């Protein structure tokens, strides 16, 4: 269940692949196996996974790998795009319809978190939409469910309407009447948790729906739900056509594949996410974030995006040529540093790479030292940058003064640069990747 599994696994799939070019059928298929495993581990429904993998495979085969990405990253990019589009767009708006009062009907399995969510939603409607809210207690089965809603209503500071164990379809009508006569804008109806295969209870839900004609029918579903999520969602949607979904307990460490399953079988937008036990722990649902959470990729995607933007393809090619021909200069080095800076601070970048954030520990990248290096190079003349060999003692003294550093700092930089240049010359003889890696991926120590 390693959280950073997928990117490292994909890396190993593509290890043999040093060149870029196109994604071949065989590579894609191998990668898809890992994707499939990751999705299943995240509890995405098996049939949804099968379908999804087929589609991604069709799209990925033959795709050109973007200049700045590795094949593994390229696959992740494609998978992510498809996942995000499957999750739908952000849609956290509530519809209130034209009828007064507007009714929001909450439904779901037992223990999904409907009652708590009613309170959170009431608080949100009050605060964000500036409307008055009435909570209506229709769970007449679970012991103390009405008491719970009363407490929750108290916390959200909204009135709670209840009629004990009277039939819910009757209670709901009276609640609407009450709301109308008290000029309350929105009635949120809490219903009993029910199994989707319980015919009688599903009929009851239908009767409640018919009695209150809701503007929104929201299915509340636990983020930790497994393969069965699709069955439940489908059954609820068929009984009382849903207008949206709320996913709860997202503050756990589940990858939440149920969200994808539910979205894909019902086609209904996921509007909100419950992220804690406080009344304010309700958030608009972010489909893109969910996509990367399901795959457990940390924010490797953000990294990909940033890399795409920051690395100018031409520059990259030029750099490669220079490295090969030993024409790498301090000027190029400065360029490279600027590009890195565009991507964000080193720590930020490290943090985005799955598996790195934890392991970095005390090993902090010294941003100050990086700034000093930059200052030193900037204090050089263009000629000096092109050809560091001309840097004699007096030039070095001048540079140290100009950059506000010590002459030792200047010496150290030049030594490192020389070594790196030598190293590069050796490496371009063949084993570039290997040795670069050993040195931490970049020829300079910052």
């Amino acid at each position: 269940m390693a959280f950073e599994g997928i990117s490292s696994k994909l890396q190993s799939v593509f290890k043999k692949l040093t060149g870029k070019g196109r994604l071949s059928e065989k590579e894609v298929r191998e990668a898809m196996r890992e994707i499939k495993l990751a999705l299943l581990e995240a509890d995405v429904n098996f049939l949804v996974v099968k379908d999804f993998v087929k589609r991604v495979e069709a799209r990925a085969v033959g795709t050109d790998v973007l200049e700045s990405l590795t094949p593994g990253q390229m696959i992740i990019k494609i998978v992510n795009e498809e996942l995000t589009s499957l999750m739908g767009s952000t849609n956290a708006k509530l519809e209130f319809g034209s009828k007064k009062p507007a009714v929001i009907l909450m439904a779901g399995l037992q223990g999904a978190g409907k009652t708590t969510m009613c309170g959170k939603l009431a608080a949100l409607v009050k605060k964000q939409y500036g409307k008055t809210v009435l909570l209506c207690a229709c769970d007449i089965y679970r012991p103390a469910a009405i008491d719970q809603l009363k407490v929750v209503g108290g916390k959200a500071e909204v009135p709670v309407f209840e009629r004990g164990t009277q039939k819910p379809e009757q209670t709901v009508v009276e609640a609407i009447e009450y709301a109308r006569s008290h000029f309350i804008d929105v009635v949120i109806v809490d219903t009993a948790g029910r199994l989707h295969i319980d015919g009688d209870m599903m009929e009851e839900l239908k009767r409640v729906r018919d009695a209150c004609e809701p503007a929104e029918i929201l299915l509340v579903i636990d983020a930790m739900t497994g393969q069965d999520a699709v069955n439940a969602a489908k059954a609820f949607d068929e009984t009382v056509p849903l207008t949206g979904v709320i996913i709860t307990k997202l503050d756990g460490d589940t990858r939440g594949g149920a969200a994808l399953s539910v979205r894909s079988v019902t086609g209904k937008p996921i509007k909100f996410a419950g992220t804690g036990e406080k009344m304010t722990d309700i958030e608009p649902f972010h489909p893109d974030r969910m996509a990367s959470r399901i795959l457990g990729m940390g924010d490797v995607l953000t990294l990909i995006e940033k890399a795409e933007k920051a690395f100018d393809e031409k520059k990259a090619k030029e750099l490669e040529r220079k490295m090969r021909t030993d024409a790498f200069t301090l000027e190029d080095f400065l360029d490279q540093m600027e590009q890195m800076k565009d991507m964000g601070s080193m720590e930020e970048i490290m943090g985005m790479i799955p598996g790195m954030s934890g392991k970095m520990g005390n090993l902090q990248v010294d941003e100050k030292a990086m700034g000093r290096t930059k200052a030193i190079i900037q204090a050089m003349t263009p000629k000096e940058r092109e050809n560091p060999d001309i840097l004699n003692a007096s030039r070095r003294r001048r540079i140290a003064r100009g950059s506000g550093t010590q002459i030792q700092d200047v010496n150290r930089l030049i030594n490192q640069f020389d070594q790196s240049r030598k190293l590069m010359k050796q490496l371009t003889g063949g084993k570039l990747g290997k040795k670069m890696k050993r040195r931490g991926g970049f020829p300079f120590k910052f």
Partner: protein
Amino acid sequence: MEKKSWFTKLKEGLGKTNSWFAGLFGGERINDEFYEELEEAMILADMGMDTAEKLLDALRETVKREKLTARDEAKDALIRLIADTVRHDTPFLADQGPCTVLIVGVNGVGKTTTIGKIANLYKQNGRKPMIAAADTFRAAAAEQLGEWANRADCPMVRHQEGADPAAVVFDAIASYRAKGCDLLLVDTAGRLHNKKNLMNELNKIRRVIARELPDTPCEVLLVLDATTGQNATAQAKAFMEVCELTGVVLTKLDGTAKGGVTVQIHDTLNVPVRFIGVGEGIDDLQRFDADEFAKALL
């Protein structure tokens, strides 16, 4: 108390989605396609890919060793394999005399309902249960449990909402002694297993029990919702760390979910399933039976 219907009830629940399972085991040949379908079925039952593959490997070996040719035979073999994985023969300590049963789990899995059912079960068997309402966090949790205590006709100790749960347990133990009870059932608030502070609180409750009732054995049962997916394994591991789980209660098995993830949990943590919940009635709690479970699963 064995109301004979448990298998029927379970089978009824599981049976509703079982129609295409049934189609799986025709009289046809055992081939790759057959294994693939089996794997799919196991994954759909939330058993997880790793567990499914492991079981399939074992099945392949069995098929070879016993020279099985019919799909029905292979199905029986797989059922046996699954049953063996979840079988256990350690006794449930509450059956043997005075005992504390601590109920833990994430939010909304059915802890409170399970306590009510367990209290009722043992009360019917002539025991004297005492209930500690140590969920002082969730709104109206104690009221809900109080209703169950009434139905089961058992005494219950509760404090105000927001009180220290360990203090509730402490008082309940005093009352348990004074009243001469022989089964202490402790309800706790639902907590997500990745919330450090809440998990530590649980650890404290466990310590209070160990200190106050050092000679009474303690069963720590994790309540798992059968609809839960692969995250259940992470839950079990986390609860194991703070309060030494000794068993699992699998709830909501009357739905279409099969709770296959418990196979994985039993396999990795060696924690047996003790009870299953198959409905909202006070009698809807059954002893876990490995063979029946496996049979109902496939």
